[in-house]
């Protein structure tokens, strides 16, 4: 791995995204003249027109950025490098992670185009914030020192705080934005505290240096260095656990997921979670074994992951709001992912399992939320189980998509969720954590109940209100749903390519 100061070839995608942000900003600044220039003949309202324009502009931008990522791979020959004085890693397997996050962004965009108009959300603000958040996530997974890590984490989170509150006329949305902001600030405090402890203990902010000096026998037990090192790691973990919503740092999740615009919820639940997990993997499950600290981390991670799985899956049972149910399900899934690293084997296999699960989770959660968005009509929300009653009659396609999503979330073959769960449980079994594995498995049976319940409601209940309203411009949503569904099934039957990709991504963390 070469160390460079700066080479634009490695950061083409990020630079492209930054350029897109500039373009979007300027396009919004001059939206009035542009509107008058192009909208001579269409009958759309100004908001709807602008939303659609902005959507297309962002979409084209994202596709170009994706192309740039692929081109970067060609340009750099798939060799990773470390840039900007140990600040960023770039290239190599990391590109896979970046592409996955970008694809999550593209899917979010497809789900948003119509939704923003329904909710009267000003589109370009929304897409701009999405771009910022994406840029943050892309930087986050590449961060090589703690300052960059913190910067990227905030760059990813702050736009999301704003996006959660974008349904400005909906008090729930405001409430959830404030909640997320305050608790997010709180968790950032933990994160910074952890970073400063680590700096104090090791005198460095470069992640790899910190990890090396924390590993035994570099560090001796029963010295203040070791104590603050351990505390630093723990606080760092708390800060990140908030982002991936492990119990008991999860409490914001259901409220925020419910209050936010559904595409944002989808984005939060996949992109934020995946990139935060990439960071967790990098710090806690990387190649550096912490020796004595490992036993702390095994206990802590195992404990939090297990109660997360138990709590998430249990509470999801009694939810009547599908978005809340999916929030608890996302908590539970975070628990499963954390379980895979709980044995602290520091092997690439554990990281691979988590990343595989995370990538598969992108597809399935996007699909589940996509169906909810598809069924949302003007003045008619589709959020509760009652809203889903008898949906299969009128919208068999959407119901089939939901079936695929639920099967995958529940981990039923041949969906990708099944392969993911197997990977996770293999980690536990290989580490001889049988009791943990059995408990987690039991709770994934509990999970079956609420996933299947959605299907029962859709297929076997009579619709109680008239849900026959057709709506236009569903094409982007369909594209997103079809792509996710295809991925779920395809990767479930043919997991090998995705396993290879996660392996590549995982190996760059080491």
């Amino acid at each position: 791995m070469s160390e460079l100061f700066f080479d634009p070839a490695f950061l083409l995608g990020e630079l492209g995204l930054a350029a897109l942000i500039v373009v979007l900003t300027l396009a919004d600044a001059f939206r009035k003249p542009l509107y008058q220039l192009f909208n001579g003949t269409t009958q759309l309202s100004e908001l709807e027109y602008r939303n659609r324009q902005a959507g297309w502009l962002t979409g084209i931008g994202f596709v170009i950025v994706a192309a740039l990522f692929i081109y970067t791979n060609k340009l750099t020959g798939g060799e990773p490098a470390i840039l900007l004085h140990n600040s960023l890693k770039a290239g190599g397997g990391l590109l896979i992670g970046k592409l996955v996050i970008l694809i999550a962004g593209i899917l979010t965009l497809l789900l948003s185009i119509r939704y923003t108009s329904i909710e009267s959300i000003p589109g370009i603000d929304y897409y701009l914030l999405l771009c910022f958040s994406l840029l943050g996530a892309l930087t986050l997974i590449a961060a090589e020192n703690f300052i960059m890590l913190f910067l990227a984490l905030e760059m990813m989170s702050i736009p999301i705080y704003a996006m959660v509150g974008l349904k400005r006329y909906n008090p729930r949305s405001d409430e959830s934005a404030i909640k997320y902001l305050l608790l997010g600030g709180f968790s950032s405090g933990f994160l910074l505290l952890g970073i400063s402890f680590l700096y104090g203990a090791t005198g460095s902010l470069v992640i790899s240096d910190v990890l090396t000096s924390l590993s035994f026998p570099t560090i001796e037990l029963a010295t203040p260095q070791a104590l603050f090192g351990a505390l630093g790691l723990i606080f760092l973990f708390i800060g990140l656990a908030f982002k991936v919503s492990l119990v008991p740092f999860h409490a914001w999740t259901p409220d925020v997921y419910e209050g936010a615009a559904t595409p944002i919820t989808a984005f939060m639940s996949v992109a934020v979670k995946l990139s935060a997990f990439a960071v967790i993997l990098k710090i806690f499950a990387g190649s550096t074994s912490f020796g004595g600290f490992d036993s702390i981390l095994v206990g802590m991670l195992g404990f939090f992951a297990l109660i997360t799985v138990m709590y998430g899956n249990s509470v999801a049972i009694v939810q009547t709001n599908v978005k809340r149910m999916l929030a608890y399900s996302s908590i539970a899934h975070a628990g499963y992912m954390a379980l895979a690293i709980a044995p602290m084997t520091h092997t690439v296999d554990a990281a691979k399992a988590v990343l595989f699960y995370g990538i598969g989770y992108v597809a399935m959660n996007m699909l589940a939320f996509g169906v909810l968005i598809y069924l949302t009509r003007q003045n008619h929300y589709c959020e509760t189980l009652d809203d889903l009653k008898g949906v299969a009659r009128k919208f068999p396609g959407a119901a089939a998509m939901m079936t695929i999503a639920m099967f995958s979330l529940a981990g039923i073959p041949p969906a990708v969720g099944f392969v993911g769960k197997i990977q996770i449980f293999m980690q536990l079994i290989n580490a001889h954590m049988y009791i943990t594995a059995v408990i987690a498995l039991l709770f994934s049976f509990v999970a079956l109940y609420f996933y299947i319940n959605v299907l029962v409601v859709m297929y076997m209940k009579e619709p109680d209100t008239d849900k026959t309203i057709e709506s236009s411009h569903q094409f982007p949503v369909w594209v997103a749903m079809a792509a996710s569904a295809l991925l779920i099934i395809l990767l479930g039957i043919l997991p090998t390519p995705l396993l290879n990709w996660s392996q590549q991504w995982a190996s760059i963390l080491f």
Partner: protein
Amino acid sequence: MELFIIVLLPLIGAVSNGIVTVINAARGKQVWGEKTAGVIAFGAVAASFVISVYMVFVKLAHSEAISQTAYQWMAVGGLKLSITFMLDHISAVMLLVVTGVSSVIHFYSIGYIHGDESSVRYFSYLNLFVFAMLLLILGDSMPLMFVGWEGVGLCSYLLIGFWYKDEEKAIAGKKAFIVNRIGDFGFLLGMFLIFANIGSLTIADVNHYFHANPGMTFFWINVTAICLFIGATGKSAQIPLYVWLPDAMAGPTPVSALIHAATMVTAGVYMVCRFHGLFLAAPIAMHVVLWIGALTAFFSATIAIFQNDIKKVLAYSTVSQLGFMFMAAGAGAFAIALFHLMTHAFFKACLFLGSGSVIHGMSGEQDIRFMGGLKSKMPHTYWTFLVATIAIAGFPPFAAFFSKDEILWNVFASEYGNKIVWVIGAIAALFTAFYMFRLVYLTFFGEFRGTHEQEHHLHESPKTMTVPLMILAVLSTIGGWIGIPKLLSLGFIPNVLEHYLEHAVSKYGEVHLHHYSHSIEYGLMGLSVAIAIAGWFFAKRKYAAIKGQLPDPATYKGISKLLYNKYWIDELYMKIVVNPLKSLSTNVFLNITDKRLIDGVANGSASSWGRVAMMFSKLQTGNIQSYGFYMIVGAALAVAFIWIIF
């Protein structure tokens, strides 16, 4: 790659038609109708056929087998499964028969299903069936084969119950499925036994293992082979599991032709041939196969004599002919079994499609007592039906003469053969000729015995139905010529089929024929011809000049009553298997185990767990202070873990 495409094309057809079925049903409007659906379905299968021909005659011409791996399916412990397709000379024969006959029948279906409201669904099922069948044929490992094996069973169920609104048809579908499942259980057991002993499930490994050095004891080898054969009896409708096939005639006629005559039911025969390495190592199992085949051939032939439903006659005839194939396999003549499988596919498909044409012309009437004299009204159907009948009866030089004669000769002369079985087979052949000509005479000769209404509507079927009939009639005529025995070859006509399959079926052990003089061989051949002629003669004497109405089956006495009621086997099964099981299920499993025990535990735990969850969800106060407090508690807990080492 090509093999992958062959298998995939019908799946694409099935999926696209399936999706359209769902959309059509939901939207109430047609995305595409039966025309497009038919063309897509036919096109997919025909393309498969074309590629198969290319593969077999070009690619396979100079090699023994082609194996193409699509991808690794799963790796669990020591079991590594990959989706690998293998084309060797055995599967090549089967592949051509299946894709070829399927193409013809898909084409026929376009005309047959015209006007049915769920025709798109029909084509979707039909394509799905072809997909599953191809999986079965080309799969190179037992699990893959089993997927196809179950898949064809499923499609058979779906298609028998295609008109599920008619309860009788739905029940027939269910019966077929359940009986098949019993057989599948045997297959699965065999598979487990093999895996437990060998640790590999690819066909080549299995055959090689049993051929080379059976580490298994003689007893277990035979048990394994018999388990597999039980699977075959289910799928191929042999004693004791043959009962589903006659009922399966409830499905649309092209389905009977395709699935229940030409292809699916022969899967059992194919499977036995596939695993001939195993069967040759299990002489007891070979005897079981031989005897079951012979008995099935004989009994179902006797039943066929007194059936009045045109399709039922053909169904029992199918069971009987499948018995012949198993006789061949049991005698170790696997090539001949495949030969008869192929010729049977041609003439039985032709007969079924012909019967479909007759039923179509008769406005749905299936009882031959009310037919007669159709010869002049439906000339194309008549001629093709007659050709196929002559073929099945075994007149030279039609197809079945060669294959059936070869079977009987092998049973007579093979080291696994048996003279008593030969006699049974010969009598069955006699019955075959008799009931087939009975069918022809009652249907096409004499005077019309149906209602005036039916007579008024009587018409020849459209071109889409008669053209496939002609194709199949031609094939029934010349199909046997690729397997002309040495004796009749006049020294220069090659026995193409035997030559082709020679290496593939003798790879894992030769079967020796006892030496007999040419005169005996000629004599037996002459006897075959004589049997066919005798069958025809008796049928003509009894039924050719029949006048007036035929007797009601209720008045049947003695042996005819026994045969008409199919030896009361169905009733027997009902009494000794189904009813006791039913009462056991309702009284013990449903009322006690399920309702009290399982539901009690499940519902109890679900509701009590719901209460716990309710309690947990109380934590979600919506109050941001309490959320912050949880985080503090969590942080305190996390920090507490430090005591592990400090």
